[in-house]
């Protein structure tokens, strides 16, 4: 029987295929909890979870909050503006204070890659990475993979395209690591400024033409163009991006009827995806949101129960 022993989840890169499968299977069991009239189980009763978000986020934080509440944990939210980080306290000192407050689980969103691992190695609390810079966003990767597996019954052998801003995307990295471990064929698509050829070292294909790959893919995962992170030189303008990489109606018509259309949200209607296509029958964008709760319940449950493996 498969088991889980980790206390932290800092990335999918460090997990084995068996560990990823464990979390997906566990999430399947937790998805049922959300479908009951009484959507709550006592597994984390008496545990305190701190949502420690040093970068703004609403949906990920809310999803973790709902997941923790369904597991009967007590939840405290701390955001960057309210935190002492602005008063000059270091991340480690803030985290030590959270631990001294007897937080059992700290969900961390931070702009520095590696910040979750840094805390995981120093604190007894479970650390869950909710996004560390452009490095990883493992629960988003897991919920994308969960959604794909739920629809196809497998990951192995599927052709999956990830489109858009790969260079800046932690979502893309977590997807790539997880999908490759489970045996998918991954193609990254976007302008060469955002999808450099060097990504091929990870074991994926790189394409700069969305039109070339539409007919062959089982899943197209569209990443958000992050206006707030990008400087102008990465692509000339949104209009050009839409004409080359937007999932327009004409492009969507070339997809297999069984192809899933995914997006981690928040979507820019008319940019990455045509508005009608986002609401169409191939779109699983809102199912991703629902599945996110089950996946995060599985991660919180597993890490709270794990004793921690020696690093």
């Amino acid at each position, binding site marked *: *029987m*498969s*088991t*889980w*022993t980790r206390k932290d989840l800092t990335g999918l890169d460090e997990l084995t295929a068996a560990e990823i499968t*464990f979390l997906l*299977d*566990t999430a*399947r*069991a*937790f998805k*049922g*909890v959300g479908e*009951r*009239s*009484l959507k*709550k*189980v*006592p*597994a*984390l*009763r008496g*545990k305190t979870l701190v949502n420690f978000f040093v970068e703004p986020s609403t949906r990920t934080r809310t999803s973790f909050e709902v997941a923790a509440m369904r*597991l009967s944990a007590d939840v405290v939210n701390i955001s960057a503006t309210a935190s002492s980080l602005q008063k000059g306290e270091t991340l480690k000192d803030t985290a030590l204070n959270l631990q001294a407050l007897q937080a*059992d689980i700290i969900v961390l969103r931070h702009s520095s890659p590696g910040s979750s691992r840094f805390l995981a190695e120093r604190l007894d609390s479970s650390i869950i990475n909710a996004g560390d810079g452009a490095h990883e966003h493992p629960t988003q990767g897991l919920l994308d993979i969960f959604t794909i597996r739920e629809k196809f019954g497998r990951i192995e052998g599927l052709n999956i395209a990830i489109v858009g801003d790969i260079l800046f995307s932690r979502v893309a990295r977590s997807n790539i690591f997880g999908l490759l471990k489970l045996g998918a064929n991954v193609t990254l698509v976007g302008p060469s400024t955002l999808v450099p050829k060097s990504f091929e070292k990870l074991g994926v294909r790189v394409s700069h033409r969305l039109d070339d790959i539409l007919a062959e893919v089982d899943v197209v995962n569209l990443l958000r163009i992050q206006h707030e992170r990008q400087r102008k030189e990465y692509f000339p303008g949104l209009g050009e991006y839409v004409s080359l990489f937007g999932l327009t109606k004409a492009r969507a018509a070339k997809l297999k009827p069984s192809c899933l259309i995914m997006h981690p949200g928040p979507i820019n209607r008319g940019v990455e995806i045509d508005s009608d296509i986002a609401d169409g029958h191939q779109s699983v964008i809102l199912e991703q949101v629902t599945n996110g709760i089950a996946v995060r319940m599985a991660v919180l*449950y*597993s890490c*709270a*129960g*794990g*004793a921690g493996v020696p690093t």
Partner: protein
Amino acid sequence: MTAEPNTSDNTPKTAMDSEAIEKAIRRMAHEIVERHDSTNRIVLAGIPTRGVEVARRLADHIEKIEGVRPYLGTLDISMHRDDLSTRGKVTALEVTDLPVDLDARPLVLVDDVFFTGRTTRAALDALASFGRPSTIQLAVLVDRGHRELPIRPDYVGKNLPTSREEKIRVRFENLDGVPDSVVVIKP
């Protein structure tokens, strides 16, 4: 270790073979039928992994006796236990699948081994989030003693007095690929 080395025979001892298991389950099925009003279909809820198999076999027998098959479900109780953080590792969860609204129906929880009663307590908790059965009873293939809670089974395949240190291993041919057996393993 300061204890004397264990010189007694500690080879596993078979407590039930496949014939004994078959007879015990058949007898329990008769008892369940006897104690339920046949006008209302029973729900058998098996606790993974082997409780589900015991429940399936009970359902087969009840169907033979009554001509009606009881509802058969799976109730994973891991997320309702109270000892998550003391175990150090987490085992995979099964998907809970109850085929019917439980309200006002008689339900029989089914497990392979009854030990401390904590699994049953968790199962009662879990059931509360699915509905309100009219009655809840407990059927177990083996009662090995050492209750820690005021909970006892209503139907028992075999009472098997054990020491706390001993382990009970239940195997079913269709799950484990070895003949059906209940074996006592000494530490």
